[in-house]
């Protein structure tokens, strides 16, 4: 098994590169030419569409450290992306996106090639993409780092974990996509993909593994093959759609510093419902994850551990005029569907995390937004930075989140 780093991360240059990315965004947006269509190759050549965003957030919690040192207030909540696309031939599009992020201990401003794909659309029924593609799952997975695309600062973290950004959002491989009309029953949109996931040793999943028993740092992580798909039924009722996503990793494997190896093939099932009517948007999603890890080596007996969390949320948001949007969601996350009360845990509050969020979004312009959000939380199942949260109780705790995003 190899220890694979997908691209050199240029760690020592990450902050200058992140600043260069930000400077590029500002420079491009200030040019006289329309920022989103640039005739870079001459007036007769296809134009290049260029878009980007930079987001800066702030998190503060009444207790515990969540997504960073939030108990002291944390600005380690930054995202920036710059993408470009053009159509070199009929029905063909090439696009790429660079991305940098920092969420608590994850990301650390590494600049990565986030997306690089070539796409050919045969017709509305069938198209194909290849390269590093955004992985569709549910309403938000392929856009979970795009602050512009939602009301909330923080998506329900049990379902869209900001710390798993390094590998969960993309897949290196191929995808078939299309939209199938269903006569009077609307249409069925599909995306079927297969390729490699690339979790990083300094990414959020590795940090999670290191902060769970046996609390041993990982020294290698493979790049498992992942196959799956997302279906959307676009119903005949305007604004209503229902989705189903399934995916399976094959032999996700990691080894910790003691030589203990864990191998498992996780399954994910993800159900979605969305209704948009006038100024209202209603959403509901449920996700169930299941993996049986086989552990061996490291001088210990062979063992099996079943990991089976689930999570759901319901939300409502309303647009108020052209500038304001308010919303709320309630979500529950359970670390183990077979022990929802924490009866088998040293800290029973680690069994679940329930969160009520209230959000306000202000669009100062088409290119600049601000968000203010409050969270009322019970449970500590998502507080996986155990070193920073040595004592965890079931009392309610609170968090505020602020964020601003510039885009073009």
């Amino acid at each position, binding site marked *: 098994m190899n220890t694979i780093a997908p691209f050199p991360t240029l760690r020592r240059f990450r902050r200058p590169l992140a600043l260069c990315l930000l400077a590029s965004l500002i420079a491009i947006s200030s040019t006289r030419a329309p920022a989103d269509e640039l005739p870079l190759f001459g007036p007769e050549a296809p134009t290049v569409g260029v878009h980007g965003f930079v987001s800066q957030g702030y998190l503060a919690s009444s207790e515990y450290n969540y997504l960073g040192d939030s108990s002291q207030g944390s600005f380690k909540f930054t995202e920036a992306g710059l993408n470009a696309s053009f159509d070199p031939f*009929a029905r063909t599009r090439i*696009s790429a996106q660079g991305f940098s992020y920092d969420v608590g201990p994850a990301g650390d401003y590494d600049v990565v090639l986030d997306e690089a794909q070539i796409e050919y659309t045969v017709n509305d029924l069938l198209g194909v993409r290849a390269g590093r593609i955004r992985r569709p799952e549910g309403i938000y997975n392929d*856009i979970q780092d795009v602050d512009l695309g939602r009301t909330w600062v923080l998506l329900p973290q049990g379902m869209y974990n900001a710390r798993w950004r390094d590998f969960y959002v993309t897949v290196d491989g191929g995808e078939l996509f299309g939209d199938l009309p269903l006569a009077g029953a609307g249409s069925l*949109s599909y995306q079927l993909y297969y390729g490699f996931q690339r979790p990083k040793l300094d990414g959020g999943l590795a940090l999670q593994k290191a902060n769970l028993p046996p609390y041993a740092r990982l020294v290698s992580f493979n790049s498992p093959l992942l196959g799956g798909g997302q279906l959307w039924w676009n119903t005949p009722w305007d604004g209503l759609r229902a989705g189903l996503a399934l995916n399976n990793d094959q032999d996700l494997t990691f080894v910790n510093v003691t030589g203990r190896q864990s191998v498992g093939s996780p399954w994910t099932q993800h159900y979605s419902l969305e209704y948009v009517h006038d100024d209202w948007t209603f959403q509901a999603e449920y996700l169930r994850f299941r993996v049986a890890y086989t552990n061996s080596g490291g001088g210990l007996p062979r063992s099996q551990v079943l990991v089976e969390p689930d999570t759901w949320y319901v939300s409502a948001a309303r647009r108020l005029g052209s500038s304001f949007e308010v919303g709320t969601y309630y979500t529950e996350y359970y670390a183990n569907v077979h022990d929802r009360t924490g009866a088998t845990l040293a800290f029973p509050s680690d069994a679940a995390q329930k969160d009520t969020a209230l959000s306000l979004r202000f669009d100062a312009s088409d290119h600049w937004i601000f968000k203010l959000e409050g969270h009322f939380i019970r449970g500590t199942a998502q507080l996986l930075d155990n070193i920073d949260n040595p004592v965890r109780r079931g009392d309610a705790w609170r968090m505020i989140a602020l964020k601003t995003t510039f885009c073009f």
Partner: protein
Amino acid sequence: MKPYLLRMGLACLALQVGALGATPTPGALLIAHADVPADRIATAVLKNIYAGRTMYWDGGQRVVIAVLPDLTDSALKELSGMDASQFRTFWQRLVFSGRGQQPLKANDVSSLVALVAATKGAVALVPANAVLHGVKIIEVQ
């Protein structure tokens, strides 16, 4: 979506234009770049274009949507089921997930017409009294 609903939606433009103090005009027009290979288009197909499900014209040219905020919001809502803010957010999601390109935006009618005339594959809704140069009108069926 039934054609009569689209005509009702387009007719609402007259009320909106009237509210802005301009000369009231009955409805709006769908215009396109002169090379767009269509002289008429079904409402369902047009709806698929504005919802991002149809990305290319026959012949393979990419569809480029151009929008004129405020003056065409009602017709846009009728076509896509989204108001202007929802429409913008929807397309931002497509752009940053690598699945689409942001519609172009113009600040006034004459700029929009010029933009459509200069952009291959472009399509846009304009008020019916717009002065048109270098573009074609597409009949919505």
